[in-house]
């Protein structure tokens, strides 16, 4: 027994999870505690999760957790935010310090596997490694960057991805490697390299910090896939469903044009059965997910709006981050967001 515990602990230490195969166990625990423990990125992640000047967490990932709390409890306030770091996030989840991570974790096979035992219920943001160049270079595609000097953080997947990309396209580049992101940005800003590469969202945040943000452009290529999803422990199907359908409800609402402003009116007047089921006017979607109330999706949209509204509030072009929707548009608008129908 002791040996087993030791082995389990050692496994957790290396970001491997310990999970129990009892369905509903985590959800029961959350319900009996009365709050959802949500792991967010510490110290902060611009736009995605930042404590405001009064110490209250705000941002895209924060509202995802609050939406899940509405589904479970019918109350967006019943969340405890627990800051986790990139080193501590998976051990914290495995050890039960948090119930859910909402901190821009990439869905990968290793993390999803039966070794690590995590679950990624639904993608909330399609990120991907991108490259930024000064506008004056007149480059419109990453394929035209042969011979460029590239500012990149050493020892990261970012570095691997960029060298793979250049090799794959028979191009050469000179790396400028600096491990501190702020230093790296300064090197790019002062012209020590032509290209700055990082994940799209991070790159956009870095762009706001340049001397002249408008003089720099992020090229359209995505040279890696970084699908970001909330993470929970494997083995609780009910919780998986709840998280997935919380996200799907947000996406479906945007696809069907349901917003915070018109949700009540649509719920009252719509004859579309998919809309009526999503908003809890008919059917038993809430009950079948063991949500707190049949109209949980309506409450979420009334409180936070649909996916697009949350996106625009924290990340969109009217925020200092100025992230284009890009791949994060709904499928009918040319993006990748696609949620199953509510029926």
């Amino acid at each position, binding site marked *: 027994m002791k040996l087993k*515990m030791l082995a389990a602990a050692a496994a957790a230490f290396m970001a491997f999870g*310990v999970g129990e195969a009892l369905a509903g166990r985590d959800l029961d625990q959350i319900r009996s505690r009365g709050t959802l423990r949500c792991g967010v990125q510490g*110290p*902060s992640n*611009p736009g995605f999760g*930042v404590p405001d000047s009064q*110490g209250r967490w705000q941002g895209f990932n924060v509202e995802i957790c609050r939406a899940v709390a509405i589904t479970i409890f019918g109350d967006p306030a019943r969340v*405890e935010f627990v*800051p986790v770091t990139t080193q501590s996030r998976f051990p914290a989840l495995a050890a039960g310090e948090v119930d859910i991570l909402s901190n821009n974790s990439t869905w990968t096979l290793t993390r999803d596997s039966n070794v690590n035992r995590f679950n990624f219920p639904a993608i909330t943001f399609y990120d991907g490694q991108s490259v930024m160049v000064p506008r004056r270079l007149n480059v419109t595609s990453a394929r035209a960057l042969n011979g460029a000097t590239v500012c990149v953080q050493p020892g990261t997947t970012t570095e691997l991805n960029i060298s793979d990309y250049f090799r794959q396209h028979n191009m050469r580049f000179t790396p400028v490697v600096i491990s501190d992101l702020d230093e790296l940005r300064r090197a790019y800003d002062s012209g020590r390299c032509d290209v700055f590469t990082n994940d799209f969202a991070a790159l956009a945040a870095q762009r706001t910090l340049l001397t002249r943000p408008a003089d720099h452009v992020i090229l359209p290529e995505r040279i890696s896939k970084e699908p970001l999803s909330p993470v929970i422990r494997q083995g609780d199907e009910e919780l998986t469903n709840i998280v997935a359908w919380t996200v799907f409800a947000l996406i479906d609402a945007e696809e069907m044009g349901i917003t915070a402003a018109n949700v009540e009116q649509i719920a009252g007047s719509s004859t579309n059965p998919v809309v009526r089921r999503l908003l809890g006017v008919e059917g038993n979607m809430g009950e079948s997910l063991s949500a707190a109330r049949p109209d949980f999706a309506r409450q979420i949209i009334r409180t936070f709006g649909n996916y697009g509204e949350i996106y625009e509030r924290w990340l969109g072009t009217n925020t200092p981050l100025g992230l284009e929707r890009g791949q994060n548009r709904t499928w009918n608008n040319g993006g990748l967001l696609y949620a199953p129908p509510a029926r």
Partner: protein
Amino acid sequence: MSASTAPIGPAFLERAATFVRACFTGWFNIIITLSCIALLVWLVPPVVNWAFINATWNGTAQDCRAAGGACWAFIREKFWFSIFGLYPYEERWRPATMIAVLVAMVLASTQRRFWNQWLLVAWVVAAIGMWVLMAGGVLGLSSVQTRLWGGLTITGIIAVYGVALGYPLAVVLALGRRSKLPIIRWFCTGIIECVRGVPLISLLFMAAIMLPLFMPEGVTLDRLLRVLFAYTLFTAAYMAEVVRGGLQAMPRGQYEAAEALGLSYWKKMRLVILPQALTITIPAQVNTFIGLFKDTTLVVVIGVFDFFTTLRSALGDSAWLGFATEAYVYAAVTYFVLCFAMSKYSQRLERDFTPGQR
């Protein structure tokens, strides 16, 4: 310190004249003086411009960017966050009161006339009082989990309690390591070497993430207590070696003289050896303390929002992007003031304890 009432007396003028003369005697000194002046002329105006003349003290991020200088408005905006961290905003008076009590207790403890058993009693009472005040859940105070404690408050708590609990433990470990009883000696050596041989970051990680895995189902120890435990142990292990250095520096004659007086082991240590050993190691002790104080920032790995972390977190506020320099200057000044105070206090202690050598 000779506090002269008139700053520009004849003695001062004479000293100034000697200084200026020394600066310009010989070509080598002249070169050094001129380069120093050039360096100052090159450095000081831009810094003064940035920090004061073009600085924005009040206003928004846009005002700051327009002015181009330092954005102290950012620090103003985030000041209370840096002090109280994630503690609920409406309850700020509680950590504020706690800090006041903590500062009062620390100041009282620096006064030698208060060094008696009542101070110990006062500390125990204050510690319980502060915990109740911060954690709440009784006396009509709303309950606030320790994970929400943050900012300078948590830095103060970890540093003060780490040292207050770690120091006595360090003395015990140091004595144990020099004990003639092998079991005690091995035990103390084992603890010191194991704790010292591991980075603080992994100790904290163990305490925060691993310890709960080993505990029986349902038994939980508060995370802050686990962190304090790890930090105290780390402090103790490092200090123990400093104290041991002091013990070894004592001439054999001191031990023998104490034994010749018929003193028991504890009396010998308490009355003769430790007072001298601890006094001669004051510089090394303060050195270790200052290092450990700055190490408190490492608690961020397990998600505790200490003072430095709150500032790094504030840097992510998208309304205030790009004022990292201001935040780091503010942090540097704060840490410097606190560390400098420790250093000054230690110098005073040294003077007080070794009157014979002056």
